[in-house]
């Protein structure tokens, strides 16, 4: 969604074409991200002609301030969709930055890793908005990601296993 999409496209801006093809996963309710992504990819194709990307949608895992119990149910529902999608794409790398949508995708990849079907490296970059506390996605994925990146030093102190590279968006 919105801010997350802008941030993630900035993260992608300096990546080489080794990170291709790119598979974007959006929440079904997200209306604005698709345009931003297509615009980004179009510009990219001007420099890297063989550039490829795909776009898939899964049900949104959680609304803002949705209750705990119903969040578990809606997240499980999203996993029902994200698991076959992750299995189909078998990504080498999952890059995410916090929207609820990323949790089912990462958990699916984690599961496929446990089942020895595909080992995916999960890189989570916490949003620049998070200075002192982690988002809910961050709190969950701190334990499931291979690399957990924070953008402010206070978070690095609180979460020692995280990586601090300074501000990267």
């Amino acid at each position: 969604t919105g801010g997350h999409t802008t941030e993630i496209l900035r993260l992608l801006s300096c990546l080489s074409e080794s990170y291709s093809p790119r598979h974007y996963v959006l929440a079904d309710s997200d209306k604005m991200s698709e345009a931003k992504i297509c615009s980004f990819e179009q510009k990219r194709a001007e420099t890297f002609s063989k550039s490829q990307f795909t776009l898939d949608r899964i049900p949104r895992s959680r609304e803002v301030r949705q209750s705990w119990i119903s969040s578990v149910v809606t997240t499980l529902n999203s996993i029902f969709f994200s698991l076959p999608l992750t299995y189909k794409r078998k990504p080498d790398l999952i890059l995410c930055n916090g929207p609820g949508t990323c949790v089912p995708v990462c958990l699916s990849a984690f599961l496929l890793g446990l089942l020895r079907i595909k080992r995916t490296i999960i890189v989570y970059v916490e949003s620049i908005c998070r200075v002192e506390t982690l988002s809910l996605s961050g709190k969950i994925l701190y334990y499931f990601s291979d690399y957990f990146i924070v953008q402010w030093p206070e978070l690095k102190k609180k979460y020692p296993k995280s990586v601090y590279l300074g501000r990267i968006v």
Partner: protein
Amino acid sequence: FRFKESLAEDLQSAELVISHAGAGSCLETLEKGKPLIVVINDKLMDNHQLELAKQLHRDGCVLYCNCSTLVETLQSMDLSALKPFPAGQPEKFASFLDKVFGLQ
């Protein structure tokens, strides 16, 4: 207007921006080098927004107030005291990922 696809044009021609504490609004404004006053909505109390606004204020990059103190802030503000906001560095991220995958 209620919603526009991009505020880039309006931002470019503005001399001062008064905004809520949303990260996108703050960052877009600061990156264009425009002075920014962030107004916190006490009633909304979204911690998410507050964290970044507080940090930007600590760093001296924005002025900060709530709805009731906005007028006072506008009257007494010193925009020249605001510090520039350094840009983020996505190249550091790219470099990090390249190391992870042995691409360097």
